[in-house]
């Protein structure tokens, strides 16, 4: 079975139904190529690093229920423009930009892991604000 078929069949089962996405081809297809499902709660992505994922950064906009976003190994062309406000865990290794989205209010965030992010020049003012917001809330 070729990759295209495989993606298509697996994704048929997934679209709009399942709350957790794990197969990386499906994630890419469902989330980053089309648009995110509002029922998805968990995304764990572990890709080959040498292939850059081309996207416009808007795919996570409508994923209102996303609570856990783990990007272990993947190279993105740009950082997201939006992050869902209900995120509890945000782990994004090698985050592609120096700050989180401008309008992101991480009031529910408990774990922030941006290890290996070479882009974090310093804590910009906005980054500090974002972090303090997220760490002020009770766990």
């Amino acid at each position: 079975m070729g990759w295209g078929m495989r993606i298509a069949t697996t994704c048929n089962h997934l679209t709009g139904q399942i709350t957790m996405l794990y197969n990386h081809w499906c994630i890419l297809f469902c989330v980053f190529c089309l648009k995110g499902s509002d029922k998805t709660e968990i995304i764990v992505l572990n890709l080959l690093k040498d292939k850059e994922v081309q996207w416009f950064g808007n795919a996570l906009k409508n994923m209102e229920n996303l609570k856990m976003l783990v990007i272990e190994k993947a190279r993105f062309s740009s950082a997201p423009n939006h992050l869902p406000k209900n995120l509890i865990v945000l782990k994004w290794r090698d985050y592609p930009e120096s700050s989180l989205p401008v309008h992101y209010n991480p009031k529910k965030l408990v774990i922030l892991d941006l290890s290996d992010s070479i882009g974090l020049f310093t804590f910009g003012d906005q980054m500090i604000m974002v972090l303090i917001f997220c760490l002020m809330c009770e766990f």
Partner: protein
Amino acid sequence: MKLSRCQSLKKVPDMSGAPNLKKLHLDSCKSLVEVHDSIGFLEKLEDLNLNYCTRLRILPYGINLPSLKIMSLRNCTTLENFPEILGKMENITYLVFSNSGICELPFSIGLLVELVNLTIDRCNKLLELPSSIFMLPKLETLEAYCCKGLARIKKGKDQVPETLPSDVRNASSRFVHKDVDLSFCYLPYEFLATLLPCLHYVTDISLDYSSIRILPSCINACYSLKKLTMKNCTELREIRGLPPNIKHLSAINCESLTSQSKEMLLNQVYNIFHRFSWSFGIK
């Protein structure tokens, strides 16, 4: 919060607005120079990891972190000063400085009353130890091997005179293994003469490969000492005393030992053997 290996991070800003922070991992942030004072007062912080921050120079001026369990500064080679401890920190059990550039430890380290493991190996710039370290009631392991500069014990002004703490005689504490590793250090005579009387609760001491010349007679103040190793102390000439409860003594390759010291050791062995055979009715 984990920002490990963020190579461009230079400064951790004011985090006083984040009082719920539990974990802060900044290990291998190779450009990190400064950690803001506010980090020293995060009431819920449990784990602070600054390992391999090889440019780190500035830590908070003081710390009072009541929830802190572990603090690690391994390989912070440019860090020279450690903050004053401003309050009793009753949760910290591990404090690690391995191969850091630390020059001095504050006397207030004695406020870390639950500290079990203090690791200061290969801190070559560390010249003196505060005597308060030896008053820490729970300390089980002091790893100080390869501290080439270590030469003095710093005593506090209002320090209580060295008396035998009551817990030395306490049966339960006698079975706790307490270990001091000073191998590969220089160990001048004055240093050992001040240090040894502070170690009355220690069960194991390693002085292997050190430049020790004389083992001072005050070693007999080490009541709890069971095992003393001095392997390859090629400059060791004199052993002026032995601890009363010693069970294991190793002085392999100590080629400079005087015949008097050797004789004393042999006598000691003979005495032990004699006592042993007596108690088993061999003779």
